[in-house]
């Protein structure tokens, strides 16, 4: 069974067989940090380019809106500016994360990554962390460019951090669940493209909900985009959102918890 050479082998003594099972928050956090490092190092050539590209996109979006609507009213301008911060976050969660998973399936690395002894949700949060680094600067740049272009006064509340966290959480958890749940990676890309198209054009993010037909308005009361735009607008400007932000925060929190639960189920289940 065990050969004589191994018993006297010095190197065998240096690394005994690791048989202990790890668990708990310490294990979770340790593997999370290592996966963040893995992602950062493994994208080291791509990341700087992605950050620049995303920033240009954010700025382009703010300027592009200015072309669509010539000389907007101050309210319209504030809608455009705050909407421009929501789109990069939605794009990040709904298209970038699922595309990373789809790519892993296409290039055959999925098996390797998901065979690693890393809790699945730690892996998800590691991906989310790294891609947030890519996506978030563009939201800030979009806001800055829009504020300058449309000459609007921002009143930034500290709650903007909570708002941004919730928006990214909902979008990314849904995106990640799609990435894992849809077995054909090419299909993933189609679904996420359609989803982001609907969010950009038919959600009351950059325009008031009143412009939509009644049934769509009613539907949006239960979906994330309008509330995402609401909490961002409410924490970035003063007096633009009528009434309390609490219902919007509540809806987003429920969506975040629900989509995490969905993600956890999708990525831990075995076919």
């Amino acid at each position: 069974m065990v050969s004589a050479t191994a018993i006297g082998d010095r190197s065998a003594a240096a690394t005994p067989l690791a048989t202990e099972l790890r668990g708990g928050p310490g294990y979770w956090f340790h593997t999370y940090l290592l996966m963040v490092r893995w992602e950062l190092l493994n994208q080291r050539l791509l990341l700087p380019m992605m950050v620049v590209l995303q920033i240009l996109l954010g700025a382009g979006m703010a300027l592009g809106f200015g072309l669509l609507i010539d000389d907007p009213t101050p309210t319209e301008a504030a809608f455009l500016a705050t909407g421009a911060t929501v789109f990069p976050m939605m794009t990040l969660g709904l298209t970038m994360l699922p595309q990373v998973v789809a790519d892993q399936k296409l290039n055959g690395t999925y098996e390797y990554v998901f065979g690693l002894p890393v809790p699945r949700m730690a892996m998800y949060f590691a991906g989310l962390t790294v891609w947030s680094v890519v996506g978030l600067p563009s939201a800030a740049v979009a806001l800055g460019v829009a504020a300058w272009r449309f000459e609007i006064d921002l009143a930034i509340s500290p709650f903007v951090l909570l708002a941004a966290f919730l928006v990214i959480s909902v979008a990314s958890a849904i995106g990640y669940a799609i990435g894992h749940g849809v077995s054909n990676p090419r299909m993933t890309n189609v679904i996420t493209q359609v989803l982001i198209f609907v969010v950009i054009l038919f959600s009351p993010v950059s325009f008031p909900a009143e412009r939509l037909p009644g049934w769509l308005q009613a539907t949006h009361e239960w979906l994330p985009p309008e509330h995402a735009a609401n909490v961002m607008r409410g924490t970035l400007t003063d007096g633009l959102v009528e009434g309390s932000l609490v219902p919007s925060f509540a809806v987003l929190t429920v969506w975040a918890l629900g989509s995490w639960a969905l993600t956890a189920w999708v990525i831990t289940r075995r076919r």
Partner: protein
Amino acid sequence: MLSALAPDPLEEARSSGIAAERRWDAALRVGHLEKVYASGTRANDDISLTAEPGEVFGLLGPNGAGKTTLVSQVMGLLRPTRGSLHLGEIDLIERPGAARQLTAYLPQGELPIESLRAREAVELVGRIHGGDAAAVRTRADELFRTLEVEQWEDEMGAQLSGGVKRLVGFMMAAVMPRPLVILDEPTNDVDPLRRRLLWQEIRSLADRGSAVLLVTHNVLEAERAVDRLAVINEGRVVAQGTPAALKSGDRGRLRIEVTVEPRADLPAFPPYLAEPVRVGRRAFSTLLETDAPRALEWVRDLTADGSFEEFELGATSLEDTYVRLVGRGTDAEALFGEATGG
């Protein structure tokens, strides 16, 4: 980090009952495993096998035989339809997370190390498997040295040749020795010299007490490298045992192998030779020992007239047994993979 003066872990394991039990009982036991996909495909059908600690266990079979399906279930990526999976006393179906912690895995596919440097990749996996930084570095040093790939340790994955990348993948699996090590075609694209070093390292993983599950197409290499093996075909285990035991079914037979020019057609084989299997330039067949004289005469004539470049007549190998078990009708590329196609 454990110093070289630390008590030998194997000795330690023997003196402490608990540790010994945990270490030596960590066999992989697959019991009547069945996997039917949602599409209705029965990829694994009543598979039972045991890979003991300290043993290199081969899993041989043509493409689509169900080897990867079996491994994916062990790794907790797929859920078995029926049957049991245990590593030591741990139920791997109930605890897929435990399966991943106790198993070091080198899949057949690409490694996600595009911009990771070889050494970073090896050390990161060691850390993810719970090794402390210093111990992992020491072990990585040792692996890079013994496999003679030190000159590539600072290269990024994208710059590595297929063979070196495969070796990096092996080191990623070997850096923290685990009770179960699964290697799917570890020698693909590896040059002959390092291939030998790699086999030595695989053997030393088993010597440290791991059960090594080796998935391969390469029958010739497997014959020398594995202690026992199972041949899988169409989702079922068609034979299981030591290479010698498996070959015993071919007792009383000889093997004839010929080499032809690339792309040259194979001349017709006489009826007393089993239907030949062609793999690239090689073609081989078996015959009864009593037919050896006329077979020798036939093959000499055809070699003399240039139909064959060379020939070999000798004892049967595991390759012949494999072909007999899996069926001559099967496409040679499916039987032996692309690695041996040349």
